[in-house]
């Protein structure tokens, strides 16, 4: 006969409620772990689906995600010609926030060379971008329908395809357009603004008295080019030819071309160690706090349920029960509660994690570790109750 189960059967209402309550708490712990993993997954999403070996960015920057980086588009030709590089493509990134149906609509716009590296990973519905202009592929999370139109800058863009879970490092869903479109959206604010800007620069130049006539004329002629140069990108990504040495190619680009070439590993480090470090630590700490709270709550529950059973324990001792009977009862109850609470928490999180606004990644390893921790907490917590129980005198069963 199992005393732990009999007691639970008798107090099933209380036991179920307690386990559910604890389960909710463990569900929060699990979601916190999932958010923590999700943060990584989000931060690395663009990096991972680009599948580039090298990220060429502006010298002395940690671009293009952690810092801004601007480089001319046409260095892609020079990168391509570096020995060991098989492919190179420019990419442009920008975060866009517009009004849509009265609400702020935020997303991460990626411009890529059609046919080059860095386009949408997998098309879930519709098709990839085929025309050079005004077509768009959006992530599922943007909740846009195929054929839907959206105005960005001066033009309307039509959604032609839906892709999977691609987000920026801050969790905004991604949309893809051709590089030319992205540059246009980024730089050609509108014609008036361009004209004003051009006139302002020309007027400034006129005021420079120590310029010679020919210098001034030369500058004026180039002003419009300067202010209209839209052939800028944030990065050029490259894939290496088989057998090429990453380090050598990297050094070559840095030495001869005066750009920084960051490996995928380096980029991962920049993203995880730098950008999301604080958030990561915050979540990690929160998770630890929650675990400590769970531990305290489990101990309290076990302890009070032991106090409730002092008379039962004294009676068992009086009739000569071995200590293992009493220890077993408390320990089994504690473990059973932990396991049920874990199951409740797991069910809860499994049913809801897809509905969270940001990505929750449930890793089997994390869940296993949490399970082990719960078992340890329950075991250790029950020691508090067991210690109390072992001190109970059989004579305590006598008092009226």
């Amino acid at each position, binding site marked *: *006969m199992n*005393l732990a189960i*009999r*007691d639970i*059967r*008798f*107090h099933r209402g209380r036991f179920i409620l307690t386990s559910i309550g604890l389960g909710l708490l463990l569900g929060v712990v699990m979601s916190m772990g999932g958010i923590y993993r999700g943060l990584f997954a989000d931060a690395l999403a663009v990096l991972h689906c680009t599948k580039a070996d090298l990220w060429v960015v502006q010298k002395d920057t940690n671009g293009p995600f952690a810092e801004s980086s601007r480089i001319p588009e046409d260095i892609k030709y020079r990168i391509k010609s570096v020995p060991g590089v098989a492919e190179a493509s420019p990419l442009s990134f920008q975060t866009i926030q517009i009004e849509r149906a009265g609400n702020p609509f935020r997303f991460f716009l990626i411009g890529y060379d059609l046919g080059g590296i860095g386009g949408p990973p997998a098309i879930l519905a519709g098709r990839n971008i085929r025309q050079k202009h005004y077509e768009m592929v959006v992530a599922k999370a943007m909740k846009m329908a195929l054929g839907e139109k959206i105005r960005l800058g001066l033009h309307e863009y039509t959604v032609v395809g839906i892709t999977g879970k691609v987000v920026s490092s801050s969790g905004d869903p991604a949309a893809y357009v051709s590089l030319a479109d992205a540059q246009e959206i980024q730089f050609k604010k509108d014609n008036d603004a361009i004209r004003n800007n051009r006139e302002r620069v020309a007027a400034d130049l006129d005021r420079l008295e120590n310029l010679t006539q020919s210098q001034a004329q030369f500058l004026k002629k180039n002003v419009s080019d300067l202010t209209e140069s839209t052939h800028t990108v944030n990065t050029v990504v490259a894939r290496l030819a088989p057998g090429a040495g990453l380090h050598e190619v990297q050094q070559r680009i840095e030495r001869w071309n005066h750009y920084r070439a960051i490996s995928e590993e380096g980029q991962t480090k920049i993203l995880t160690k730098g950008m999301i470090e604080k958030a990561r630590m915050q979540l990690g700490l929160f998770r630890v706090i929650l675990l400590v709270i769970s531990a305290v709550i489990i101990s309290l529950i076990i302890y009070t349920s032991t106090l409730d059973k002092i*008379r*039962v324990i004294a*009676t*068992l*001792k*009086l*009739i*000569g*029960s*071995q200590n293992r*009977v009493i220890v077993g009862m408390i320990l089994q109850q504690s473990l059973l509660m932990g396991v049920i609470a874990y199951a409740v928490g797991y069910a809860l999180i499994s049913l809801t994690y897809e509905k969270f606004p940001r990505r929750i990644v449930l890793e089997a390893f994390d869940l296993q570790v949490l399970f082990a921790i719960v078992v340890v907490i329950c075991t250790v917590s029950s020691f508090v109750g067991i210690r109390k129980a072992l001190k109970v*005198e*059989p*004579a305590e*069963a*006598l*008092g*009226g």
Partner: protein
Amino acid sequence: MYAIEVDNVTKIYGKGDTAVTAISHASFQVRPGELVAILGPSGSGKTTLLTAIGLINEPTHGRIIVDGVTVADGGWVPGLDLKRMRREKLGFIFQAHNLIPFLTALENVMVALEINNFPSGEAKGRAEQLLKSLNLGQRLGSYPMALSGGEAQRVAIARALANKPRVILADEPTAALDTENGKNVMALLKSLAVENHSAILVVTHDHRMVEGFDRIFEVRDGSIIRETCGAG
């Protein structure tokens, strides 16, 4: 051989100024199959004496022998497994019947057998039989709170008897019962003493309940002041 031998036992609670002598120099013997009462007013030391024999209250001086085993000789005999002695040789019945609230009547009896290493199936059969013999066949699956005082006390008796102990110790087993039920319980104990050949020591402060007992010890302030032989 006696089932219980109490030889010059003294129990002092506390030390120094606050010390209370609950039993002083008590000596008596109980034979197997004898039903003996300890009668006395409140605070006279009855429970103290019973629990000393029951191996849950260490005597300060004197010797106690249970079923031929010396358990106390100026304190517990070192190295003795008191729990084992309790579960194998003693059965307890108390006023507040001390049934385990989350076990049914049947399970309350089974528990006593299972801690004595009876396999579950055997324990169940034996507990059922015992409860039926005490007229509780209809209440096997009832929880203690659903039992009447008399029924609960009979379940407690069944539990005390489960392991066929040599000695049964009962502290005010009838205090929570009306006179009729109380007399029934006492009559039951009497018949058990005879049938099982167990020594039964019953503590009570109620004179009316000791009819039919073999012997009665009267206790005042920790000392046995009188021993009377009953009708039996």
